[in-house]
Every structure is written in C-alpha cells, then in structure tokens.
C-alpha cells in the first residue's frame, strides 16, 4: 500500500484563473435523472427557454443520485454552487434553509404560477410560512411485478391484500423456483421502504407524528417495533435475489427488468431506472408489468389508502440570477408538464396535467395519491440526513439478519433524540 501526500496548491492556482467574465447569464441546473430520454427532455426545455430568452442559457448537469446527496452540503457552501438543484423536501430541505443557502420564492411564486399547484404540494416546500421550492413530481412506493413470473407460480396479484397474503405469495413463488423479490440492499434505502411502509400501515399518521413529538417511546414504540418484526417474517423466508445485500438500486432495477425476480418494492421512478439498466435497455414491456399497493397489516391503524412516496421539486440557491426562478416558472407550465406525463417520465404535480398520463400504472398511482389523505414523504428524507440514514441502516441490518426488530427501533429513536 502506498502513502501519497496530497498536494493542494494546484487548487489554489486553478481557483484564481476560473473567474471568467460572461456576457450573458448562465444558469446551472443539477439533476439526478438517469433515464436518457427524460434528461434529453430536460435539455430540450432548457433549449426552448434559451431560444425564447436571448442572453440567458441553462446549463444542465447530471450527478448520480447517491453522489448528489453526499456532495450537496459541500457544494451549497461553495461560491461555484449550481443555481437550481433537485430536492426531496423534508429534513434535508429544512437544514439547507436553516443554513441560509436557499432562495425564498414566496414573492415570486404568486398568482397564476402558484395556482398551478395544490395547497398540499406548496405546503411540502413551505417552511415558517415561506415557499422555498417549486414542486414538480410525485411518486408512490408499491410493488411492481412481472406478470409472466406470477402466472408461472400461479400467484394472483389482485388477491394480495394483507401482509400475510404477501408472505404466502412469496412462499408460492419460491416453491415454483422463482426468486420472489429483487432488492437493492447495497444502497439500503430500497429496504427502508419495507420498514417504513409497515410502520405506516401499523400506526398510521398519528404514530409518526407522535414519534416526531417524542411522545411516549417515540420511534421505539409498538408500531415501529412491529414493523421490524413483520419485515423479519419476510426476511426469514429468504425472498430476495442472491447477493441482494451488495446490489445497488440501479443494478437491482436492471435485474428486475431482466426478469431475475418476480417483484420489486419501489417508487414509480424505478421504471426509468429499469429502462436504463436492463440488459436490453427496455426492461419488462408495459403489458407484462403489473403493480399493486403495499399490503395492509393485521390490526394496523393506518388507512389502506395512505401512501408512501416522494414529492420532489426544484430549489433555487441564494444569490442566483433572476433567470433561475424564471426558468422554473417556464418549466412548470402545463405544456411541458403534460408532455412529461404523456411520455411517462414522471407524475407531475401541476394541476390539469395528470389526464395526459398514458402509462396505466402511472395513471393508477396518480389516482392513489389524489385519493390519499396521508402521503408520507420518504422517511430517510423527511427525518433529515443523520436520522434518515439510521432508518436505512437498521432496515438493511434486519434484512441482513444482524439486529433484532427491537434494537432497530431503539437505534432510530436514539438517533432522533441525538439530533433533536
């Protein structure tokens, strides 16, 4: 092994030279979209904006999901930060706003622009009465399944209503020689969908809010411990593909697309990832792909219509040119959002766009979210980076059979106490 001294002088020299003077305004946008068609669409919107606004250009940059999240803290404090960034809302947004690096959009987002969104969507990006982001897309977590493999094992997806039904389906698939579930355990968050969705089914909105207020045992309370126990029931059946603990999310989406397993619990963005990572770059065709919502649990207080997912949007960083805000206004107009919906890139939040969705699964998900009275944002985003990561850790650890459900719930509660 070698020991290499790091020479940092070069950075200093480089920093001095980079101050170029540009005649026109360049807005830098950073996104995480993996699907080439969807990011081509984003570039197309940027090109249209530049064409209609002489003197302004939008520079679109991509960063892989995990790297994006990890780089953001440092990036946002650098003078060279991007002007428009992608956001999951929740605790990370809270920290960023508290640090004063995000522009307040309250005065810009008024009138027609503001009315494009439902109050709930605006609310997700509102802190202390100020709007800090432009909501753009919603997602829901549920089970995608491969119709051929379900048919092969004689499993009827419509009959999977409860957690016990799911366990029975897993057993049936296994005995038919089919890998029941694909999971990207290496990235951990794909597993945390199980733990958190079980908790939502067990305890509903009230349990989560009580935990946030640190009432009673907080995240170590019964619904959360039970969620771990239920996940353990599943894990004990060995339902996942071999080596799932090392598989990343993109890898696992590709494996599902290649037909290596019957189900995957993911948000609808999995479809884009599946297309990008399958061996044939297409994955499972629409007619072979099914979807069913997360099953209910026995005695659970949550409503079957409660949803877990994301409400993602865009933020403008402090000190950005006015064109950054203007571009988001341009981008969120119904014309583009309807196109994104029609081409199946995502489910837009803007009103009057969802009827443009052609993909039946996305159409169903849009209706679910519309109906839902409790749309829980992903825990790992909602709880902030330090606590959220612990939720991911313990979920993956239960799947790896290294901790007990009680220890898992207690670890989350400890992290929550430590951070608040």
């Amino acid at each position: 092994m070698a020991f290499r001294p790091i020479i940092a002088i070069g950075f200093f020299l480089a920093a001095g030279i980079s101050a170029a003077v540009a005649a026109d305004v360049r807005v830098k946008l950073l996104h995480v979209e993996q699907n080439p068609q969807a990011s081509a669409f984003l570039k197309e919107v940027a090109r249209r904006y530049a064409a209609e606004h002489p003197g302004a250009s939008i520079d679109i940059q991509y960063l892989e999901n995990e790297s994006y999240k990890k780089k953001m803290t440092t990036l946002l404090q650098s003078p060279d930060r991007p002007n428009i960034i992608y956001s999951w809302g929740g605790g990370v947004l809270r920290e960023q706003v508290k640090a004063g690096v995000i522009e307040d959009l309250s005065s810009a987002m008024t009138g027609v622009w503001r009315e494009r969104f439902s109050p709930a969507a605006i609310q997700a990006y509102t802190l202390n009465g100020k709007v800090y982001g432009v909501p753009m897309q919603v997602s829901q977590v549920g089970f995608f399944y491969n119709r051929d493999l379900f048919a092969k094992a004689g499993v009827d997806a419509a009959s999977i209503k409860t957690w016990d039904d799911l366990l029975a389906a897993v057993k049936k698939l296994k005995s038919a020689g089919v890998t029941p579930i694909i999971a990207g355990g290496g990235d951990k968050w794909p597993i945390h969908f199980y733990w958190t969705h079980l908790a939502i089914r067990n305890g509903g909105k009230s349990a989560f809010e009580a935990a946030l207020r640190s009432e009673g045992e907080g995240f170590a309370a019964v619904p959360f411990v039970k969620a771990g126990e239920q996940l353990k029931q599943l894990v004990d059946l060995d339902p996942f593909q071999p080596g799932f603990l090392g598989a990343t999310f993109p890898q696992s989406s590709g494996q599902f697309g290649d037909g290596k397993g019957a189900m995957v619990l993911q948000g609808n963005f999995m479809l884009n990832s599946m297309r990008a990572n399958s061996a044939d770059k297409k994955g499972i065709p629409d007619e072979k792909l099914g979807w069913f919502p997360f099953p209910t649990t026995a005695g659970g207080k949550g409503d079957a219509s409660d949803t877990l997912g994301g409400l993602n949007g865009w933020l403008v960083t402090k000190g950005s040119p006015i064109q950054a805000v203007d571009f988001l206004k341009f981008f969120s107009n119904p014309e583009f959002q309807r196109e994104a919906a029609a081409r199946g890139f995502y489910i837009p939040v803007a009103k009057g766009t969802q009827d443009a969705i052609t993909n039946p699964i996305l159409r169903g998900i849009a209706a679910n979210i519309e109906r839902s009275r409790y749309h829980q944002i992903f825990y790992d985003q909602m709880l902030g980076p330090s606590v959220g990561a612990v939720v991911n850790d313990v979920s993956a650890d239960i799947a790896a059979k290294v901790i007990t459900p009680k220890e898992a719930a207690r670890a989350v509660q400890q992290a929550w106490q430590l951070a608040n």
Partner: protein
Amino acid sequence: MNGKLAVVLLFLPPALLLFTLFVALPMGEAAWYSIFNWNGYGTPENFVGLKNYELLFQDRAFRTALVNNLLIIAVSLAIQLPLALAMAILLADRFRGAAMFRMIFFVPYILAEVAAGLIWRFVYDGDYGLVAKIATILGFAAPYVLADRDLAMHAILVVIVWKYFGFHMMIYIAGLQQIDPNLYEAAHIDGATGRQVLWRVTLPLLRPTIMLSVFFAVLGSIQFFDLIMPLTKGGPSDSTQTIVTYLYTYGVTRMRIGFGSAVGVVLFVICVAFAFGYNRIKMRDE
C-alpha cells in the same frame, strides 16, 4: 554560520507556511469542530464537549473499522511485502522479459483506485463475474462475495495485495540494484548457499529499503479508503468499514461534521503515534 542562517531563512518559510496552511490549521479546525454537534452549515454553535468521542468509542461499526484496519496492516506486512520481495529478487536481475514482468506487476498500482474497484466489482459479481464463472465450472454455487458479511473483507484484502504489491516490488528492485555485486561474487567464492546469500547479504543490505516500505504500507493501511467505496461502500452492514470509510459514511454523508471531525482527530493521533514510534525504533536500531 551566516550561510547556514541564510539557508534557514530561505528554505524554512515556504515549508512552514504550507505545513501550517495544509496540516496544522485543518487539524486544529477539526479538533475544534469535534467538540460541537454541527451539520456543516454556517458556524458550529452547539457545544457538546467530548460527547462525539464518547459516541464514537461506543459504536460497534467503529470497532469493526479498527479491526479491519489492523487486518489490512497484518495482510500488508505478512503477505504483501514478502510477495513483493520475492518478486523483486526474481526480477532484479537483467534477463529477457524481466522488464515486461516488472511492468505487468506494476500496472495495478498505476490504475486509478476507483477504476480498479469497479473492475473487481465485476470480477466478484455473482451473476456475470469471473469468480462466479470459475465457481460454476468447478461445480459450486456462484458466491456473491461482496454481499457476504464474512467474505467481503477477505475479497477486499485480495484486491489490496493485487493493487499495491507492485509498488513495493519496485522499491525493493531499486534497493537490490544498489547492492554491490562484488558482495555476491565474494559470497559465491566462499561457497555460500542461496539461502545464506539471502539471509546474510541481501536482507541485511536491503534493511533500510524494507524499513521504508513497511512505513509506507502501515500508514497507507491506516488511511485506506478509495478501493472500498466502489467495491462495498463499507457494507454489507458495516462489515468492510475502515476508519476513513467510517468517517465518510457516518460523518460527511450524514452531515455530522462534528462527529466526523472526532473520527479525523482519532485517525490523526493514530498516524502520528505510529510515525513517531516507528522512527524511534528505527533510530534505536541504527
């Protein structure tokens, strides 16, 4: 005397400035941050005393990281360096093909760590990888090496030896070429056996080189990071964490800069203790 003073005045300030700027100052800052609960935004305000250190030493993952670092040191010293030395002795003589072999063994060291990590991720892949293919040909079930808590660290150790032994081999070759050939001739005339030549001539004269390469190997092992990220990111369930991947995972990515700084301080203390301790041993022996 005056001349010496001029030299000091001329050469000390740049080195002192760089050292202060890039070593002393950041270290002092890290020590300062480590007594706060701070997420990296703005200035640290929430003073917590030694709480970060307390949490650190209670954490099971950190203990795993320490053990893994010790394992890397052990493998570097017990397998990597002897292998490098054996290769160096074979390849130090000038014969046809020696240069080519030297190059082949040195190539892994030149490869970027992340690229090497990704290559090995493919090699270890349970579905399409080379290891899986070989296992199936031999009639075993394909192992998912990097997803297995018991195997993953061993798999990484293999990559470490593969990646860095070429570097140490080159150091040894340089050392071997400085040994006076007359000594070998004299040993030969006196009827020394191959083993005697190795133990009585080669190794004693190579001693300073070996001391240097041990120093590099141990310090590099303590700071080991970049191969692990593309291979396992410290997983599954923290089984392949090292001190630095632990720092990155639990400090940087979770926006716990205060806690991460505490890890950094511990790492610094370990490195400094080793460097000074090693130097003392070296001095005493010389």
